[in-house]
């Protein structure tokens, strides 16, 4: 009785009620994750790398006096110098300028292609894994068919249907990545479905949607995040491959992968033409991987102190 009275008075006191509200908010898993992420130095480095590239892409026109398509034929294959920080390519375009503008394209390709694949792949994977039976049959067989093609061939076919452009290349890359996410999520869901806490959640009368998005999805995030960060790298490389075949970024758009592909003839003569875009792709992929690692650790309560 005494206890109840005290609790009631606690509720009526506005200051205490406010404090309690804060407590409720503070225990939200997302808040915890953000707090945890701030402590992780490697994740911070990853963020800095990605943000730097985003800023370079955004402010490209301010950072360089040249245009990315501006050719100066007498300055072909010049090594790095004060005028051309990263040298010039085989038609005399400033590589730093192209890298800066290219950051826009490559980050966009990586982001949209992976996000598209992530959303649809995860959704299909969750549905297939949770409901099983014929739903799983249909979705999994479609994934199998998609995976049976060499992925680049499938992408070429999709671009051929949609027409050659960077945007369509992006859509194609997203589509070929859907089964990769889908199968990953499905297998995770199938193992989670047998867990006792999912059974307990069902025994509490929880609805399917809530179980899927509130209990199964958060518990399958770790592999999804790792796949996402890896996906950024492959998406950028896939875009490069399509660009190389003339199906992705159309010249003179400065897409990193295409820059890499275009300059592979000059590896001995002018290695800087390869090193710059190659290094940038590597750095972006590294950045996303570091963020992904940090995010995975931050999401696992067992890693918290």
């Amino acid at each position, binding site marked *: 009785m005494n*206890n*109840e009275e005290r*609790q009631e008075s*606690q*509720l009526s006191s506005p200051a205490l*009620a406010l404090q*309690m*509200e804060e*407590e*409720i908010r*503070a*225990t*939200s*898993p997302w808040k915890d994750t953000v707090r945890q992420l701030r402590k992780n130095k490697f994740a911070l480095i990853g963020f800095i790398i990605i943000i730097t590239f985003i800023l370079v892409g955004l402010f490209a026109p301010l950072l360089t006096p040249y245009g990315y398509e501006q050719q100066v034929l007498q300055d072909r294959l010049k090594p790095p110098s004060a005028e051309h920080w990263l040298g010039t390519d085989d038609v005399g375009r400033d590589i730093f300028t192209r890298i800066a503008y290219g950051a826009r394209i490559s980050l966009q390709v990586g982001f949209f292609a992976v996000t598209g694949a992530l959303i649809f792949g995860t959704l299909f994977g969750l549905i297939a894994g949770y409901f*099983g*039976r014929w739903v799983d049959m249909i979705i999994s067989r479609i994934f199998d068919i998609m995976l049976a093609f060499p992925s680049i061939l499938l992408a070429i076919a999709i671009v051929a249907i949609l027409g050659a452009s960077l945007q369509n290349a992006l859509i194609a890359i997203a589509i070929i990545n859907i089964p990769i996410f889908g199968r990953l999520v499905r297998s995770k869901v199938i193992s989670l479905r047998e*867990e*006792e*806490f999912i*059974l*307990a*959640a*069902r*025994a*509490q*009368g*929880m*609805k399917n949607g*809530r179980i899927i998005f*509130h*209990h199964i999805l*958060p*518990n399958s995030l770790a592999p999804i995040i790792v796949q996402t960060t890896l996906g950024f790298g492959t998406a950028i490389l896939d875009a490069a491959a399509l660009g190389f075949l003339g199906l992705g970024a159309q010249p003179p758009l400065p897409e990193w992968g295409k820059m890499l592909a275009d300059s592979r003839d000059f590896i001995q003569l002018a290695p800087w033409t390869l090193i710059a875009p190659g290094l940038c792709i590597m750095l972006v992929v590294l950045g996303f991987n570091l963020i992904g690692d940090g995010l995975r650790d931050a*999401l*696992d*309560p*067992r890693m*918290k102190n």
Partner: protein
Amino acid sequence: MSEMILNIKELHTHFFTDEGEIPAVDGVSLHVNKGEVVGIVGESGCGKSVTSLSIMQLVPDPPGKIVSGDIYFKKENLVKVKNKRMKEIRGNEIAMIFQEPMTSLNPLFTIGNQLREAIRIHKKISKKLAHQKSIELLKIVGLPRAEEVMAEYPHQLSGGMRQRVMIAMAMSCEPELLIADEPTTALDVTIQAQILELMQKLNEEKNTAILLITHDLGVVAEMCDRVIVMYAGQVVEQGTVRDVLKDPQHPYTKGLIRSLPKLDEKNQALYSISGTVPRPKMGRVGCRFAPRCEFAFKKCFEQNPSLYSFQNERRSRCFLHDQLEGDAFKNGKATIGS
């Protein structure tokens, strides 16, 4: 007679596997009265857990399926009830706690988060109120520093504490029936006693009926009003705990009780029932226990005995009652029933 809250009639739950149909629950009938504590005892694989999952309509499907039978919860037949209604019943009117407290909480969310959620599934109340109620519940189940525990994650709690949380969660909507599937098996003995005491207290204070599934006759002796002994998917004996433990009728129950270690007998080899539990399969002829039974005779291998009823709601599934009528069972006149 007091009011029945749960009444299972001739329940058959079968699993359809590559090796054929397996009758995990093979014609089980039992009931639980309002406010009563009923124990189901049996070896692993005798169908006790599948019975409890059948009540909740949570038998993994595929491969499991309730083939026939009725499960009446008050007036409703849970086998026929709509999915949506079943979700309202689960957690709200019938709650369940599980064997493994280590894995029955979501590892990613705090205790408070999960308790609040459990309350808000069935009750439309504000987060703040749910938070208050959660703390109250944690105090009722005897968790020290309830406020702090609310912000902690499952891995920070011990097994006993987690089981208390599970009980708090199960009690959050004040269900009329609590199904406890081996709630103390994974806990050590002192914690076991505390958890049983807690469940007993809840039974007395809130008048919650409890269906306790266990393989521990000690737990049954301590907790239950009535006990149901299961073997290979069938009920072999039932009655009040006092009757069954003091004067077991079925040879299997006798064996179970004899195989309990006794503190006053030193260096005695423990009695064990020879043989193993048979794999349930379709179309089995004869008494399920016959191959392991020391009293088995020819008829036992030819037909399955039906349940013989005695006074005081006592039942036993054995042909011995035919022969030894009036001799071995002075207390009861045997009448043949199903």
